[in-house]
């Protein structure tokens, strides 16, 4: 069922290892980093909006 005879065969990709893993590498990188960036932006945005809202409340209370 499994096409490969050994793990090193799998890594070598019949001599195309650089090209195949170069493709998968950037994909994995993007799909890991993009959610992290989006989650981080979300956190900082919420923190900033909360600050602004508190400042607004202070101003109207005075």
């Amino acid at each position, binding site marked *: *069922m*499994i*096409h*490969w005879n050994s793990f090193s065969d*799998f890594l070598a*990709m*019949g*001599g*195309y290892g*650089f*090209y*195949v893993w*170069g*493709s*998968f590498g*950037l*994909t994995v990188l*993007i*799909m890991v980093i*993009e*959610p992290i960036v*989006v*989650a981080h*932006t*979300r956190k900082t*945005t*919420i923190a900033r*909006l*909360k600050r*602004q*809202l508190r400042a607004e409340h202070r101003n109207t209370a005075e």
Partner: protein
Amino acid sequence: MKDRFNLYRMASPATFYPFAGAMIPYFAAVSVVFGLAGLYLGMLVAPTDFQQGEGYRIIFIHVPASWMSMFIYLVMAFWAAIGLAFNTRLSGMMAQALAPTGALMAVLSLWTGALWGKPMWGAWWVWDARLTSELILLFLYIGYMALTAAIDDARRADKAGGLLLLVGVVNVPIIYFSVKWWNTLHQGSSINLAKSSMATTMLWGMLLMAMCFWMYSIAIALMRVRTIMLERERHTDWVKALLTEGGK
């Protein structure tokens, strides 16, 4: 409460926001499942290609990324059309939330294409109709993001960006049919409804990876649109309520 129409309009992002939040884990989980299944079939089970050896396995990234780069653009253009025609608030937010992911898909398409082109054609890049039109697609994404970021007023940014999207949509069929219309170095489509040139495991691996990319794009776009909604709707009661009660 007196103004029902206004209340209805307000209700739309307020109800979509928690709904989107609830859906994200499902799309993410389904994406992982499709991805693992696709990688298993494509990278472990699928046989060697008789022409391209093991190098063809780039297809499991290249085709899904290329499809998504075009599909996301079409979805953005759809939202732009809705936004321009009906002046709906959510449509501009949807388009903005999709743009970075679409751009990244175009980058992946070009990157994996270069890594595939080098061993098969002997060149990282050629000014071929397929490659050039995909590059233009990336520039359209970048142009849209730069344009909307440069305009402070969100509604005007949506309108200007929406026009750009609608004008640029002509590029998508050009990309798709370029391998038919012009004599290109790029190979024709691997999937043919009448007779597929691919082995069954290759085909299923590719389709599963395409589903993985699709679900990933939905999950990440929903994540992003929720932040955009908070930002844009910050003066509304529902966002203020959310922010004061902990802002989940």
